[in-house]
């Protein structure tokens, strides 16, 4: 059963099969993302370039770098178009949609959208100590243990990071990215 939503273009062209499979897929939202989400899609693409994952996280040397979207997808096909044809260290970038955190398997960047915001703590707990760059979009997200948040401040997107969460994941996050971000102390800390 196809629970993971891959890009439509990779689906079989057989319309009937697609229609029946669609019943199990995450519904789409808007056809054109708001500009905010165009910019956030570009940030996600940038994160792929500014973060280093150990090779052990990729099945082989041509395996794609996976950008996961958990819950409602505000990007529509825009994110797919941004990463189309792009490579990071020789790896293509693939966008995968997940309905629940249980489906998140081989994923490098996980966007935890507004629809999952209330469950952030559970989601992060379910991810355990896996080396996934977790990306949210509220001020609360890094305080709750998320790594990077793309926050809308007076109409511009600002990055807010939880340095401790990044350090404990042992991901190599470029200092360039950290310089541009606001550093948020974790809750209670």
């Amino acid at each position, binding site marked *: 059963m196809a629970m993971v939503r891959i*890009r*439509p*273009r*990779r*689906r079989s*062209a057989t*319309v009937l099969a*697609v*229609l029946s499979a*669609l019943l199990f*897929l995450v*519904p*789409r*939202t808007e*056809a*054109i993302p*708001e*500009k*905010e*989400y*165009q*910019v956030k*899609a*570009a*940030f996600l*693409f*940038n994160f792929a370039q*500014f973060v280093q994952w150990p090779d052990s996280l990729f099945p082989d040397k041509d395996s794609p770098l996976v950008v996961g979207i958990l819950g*409602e997808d*505000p990007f*529509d*096909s*825009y994110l797919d*178009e*941004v*990463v*189309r044809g*792009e490579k990071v260290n020789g790896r293509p970038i693939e966008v995968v949609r997940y309905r629940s955190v249980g489906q998140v398997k081989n994923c490098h960047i996980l966007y935890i959208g*507004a629809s999952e*915001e209330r469950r952030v703590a559970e989601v992060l707990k379910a991810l355990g100590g896996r080396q996934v760059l977790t990306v949210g*979009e*509220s*001020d*609360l997200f890094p305080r709750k243990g998320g790594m990077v948040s793309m926050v*809308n401040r*007076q*109409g*511009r*997107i*600002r*990055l807010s990071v939880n340095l401790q969460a990044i350090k404990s994941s042992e991901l190599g996050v470029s200092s*360039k*990215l950290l310089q*541009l971000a606001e550093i948020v102390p974790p809750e209670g800390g």
Partner: protein
Amino acid sequence: LLQIRKNSDEGAAPPDWRRIIPFFLAAALIPSAGPAHAQDRQGSITPDEIKQMTLEELMEIEVTLVSRQPERISDAASAIQVITAEDIRRSGAVTLPEALRLASNLQVARVDARQWAITARGLNQTLANKLLVMIDGRTVYTPLYAGVFWDVQHIILDNIERIEVVSGPGGTLWGTNAVNGVINIVTKEAARTQGLFLEGGAGTLLKGFASARYGGSIGGRGHYRVYGQRMDHYSSDLPGGGDARDAWEMIRGGMRSDWGLGDYGTLTVQGDIQAGEVEQPAPAPGPVEVNGQFLQARWSLDMDGGSHIQAKAYFDRTWRDIPGTFQEDLRTWDFDFSHRIPLGGRNILTWGTGYRYMQDDVENGTALAFLPARKDLQLVSAFLQDEIILVPDRIRLAVGSKFEHNDYSEFEVMPSARLSWTPTPSHTIWSSLSRAVRSPSRIDVEFFVPTPPVPDTFQRLEGGPGFDSEKLTAFDLGYRVMPWKILSLSLAGFAHRYDDLRILEQADSTRFRFVNGAEGEVYGLELSGHLQAAPWWRLRGGYTFLYTDIREMPGLDEFTQPGSQGNDPGYQLLVQSYLELPWRIEINGAARLVDELPDPTVPAYFALDLGAAWRHRGLEVTLTGKNLTNRRHPEFGPDPGRKEIPRSVRGRVAWRW
């Protein structure tokens, strides 16, 4: 919705009223000048552009309120308004003319259930003939009267990416008919309409509609969508109430596919077929029947050094049978090519050429006739424009001309010069001087009433042998400003000088004919704006003022019908409001105030539309009330005989997978 979502990071945060009240005050003060819209709220950036940006650049992008920075000087130095997909969705519109009401620089009047009189900058008629309308580059006017049959321009509105409405001439780039304005309807790329989309609805004036669309991909390089729609409308009202018997229905199906050809550019192939039927009141012997088909291919290629070429070809057929009046079968073949070349950093040269062949075949009745019944028309054109960057990022000038040859008035030249000055990124002052022509159409030259032969004692219209083009010289001056991030305003003033406008001349006691016999001026102001009053409240709209002075040229034995040059309101005001409430509820409203039309008199009217929408995941439920403030009102046409538009309610459910 998205802004609400941000607001509700910590649950649905209630609005902070102390911060909001000043916005109410501001909004209350602005309408006297015309609140409103400015440019494209979406301000889309292409994926290719955005991924080139640095993190710093991304952080500088304004995401909540955006003025679409026009890329072409023809946009920068013209009175352009953009209706976004979001504006259309919010308005609850399901037909194209309803969506066009969202551009405050257009005069849109619903004549009856299925006819609209639409123009920019005045001279409006049911057979308005000075507006160029294109859907994905395909011209949709008929050479019969150089206007648009709006009833067959049906399109699933969810397929529309944006509608660009330019008031003022666009002849230099677009050619004949782009006299008072250009409407350019751009549909979404197939990649943007992937998956399944279903919508349906019903109402009291709009009887019912249902659309289905499916988008998929082929081999990773191409995307497609296929779609179909059926729409049924009830009749409009007679003045005292009662059925005007003009109910109609349309059914349409089509497809679009976009292909990436790698180094060989991109290819778009699209086509539609449609058919419909319109009830006619007695004594007409039967309903009007229409059908049409088109197929279009468009290929474009970006080359090294920033040059861009595009080639387009289409075939379009429309057929219309008005029993007892006439039947028309029109086939159009159109080819065009354009090339944009940056030269030396300071110049961008654009040139192009086009050829159109139209085969118009009319079956005449006894009441009126187009003679000859069958006419083949050719249109050959070429244009050249240079955009010159006089001061980088500050002053740009575009000069160019279109050269065209048609079968009636032969050679036409449509030059223009446009200058834009951007002293700071939030201010643009622009001006243009241009010439445009409305070349003769069949109705001007070959129209006979009643159908010959006619006894000499009968009054009759005998075409317009020797009818020449109607000409416009236009001066525009405009100013666009974003005084604060939440407000953008655009003001355009214009002076139009018309020569050789069409009038009906009385040749002797019984014979009438069309001649180029009127001239005059139209002056106007178009103010539009956009206000983000609060993160959850947005206003857009505009105010248009028109002053028309058209008169017969001296020395003519004239006979002019009332309203023959058009019938325009002195002013019109549009305010649209989008309000976001918690729990994904939207309250959307649109109010229009349209001044009296002078000749024939149509009373001023105020119309209020209100809608509520609830969105959850792919589901959207909308309830819209239209013309709520009056039971029925006329918008166009002489009394008696004209139709009125009743108050109506409609519901719509849409679902996306």
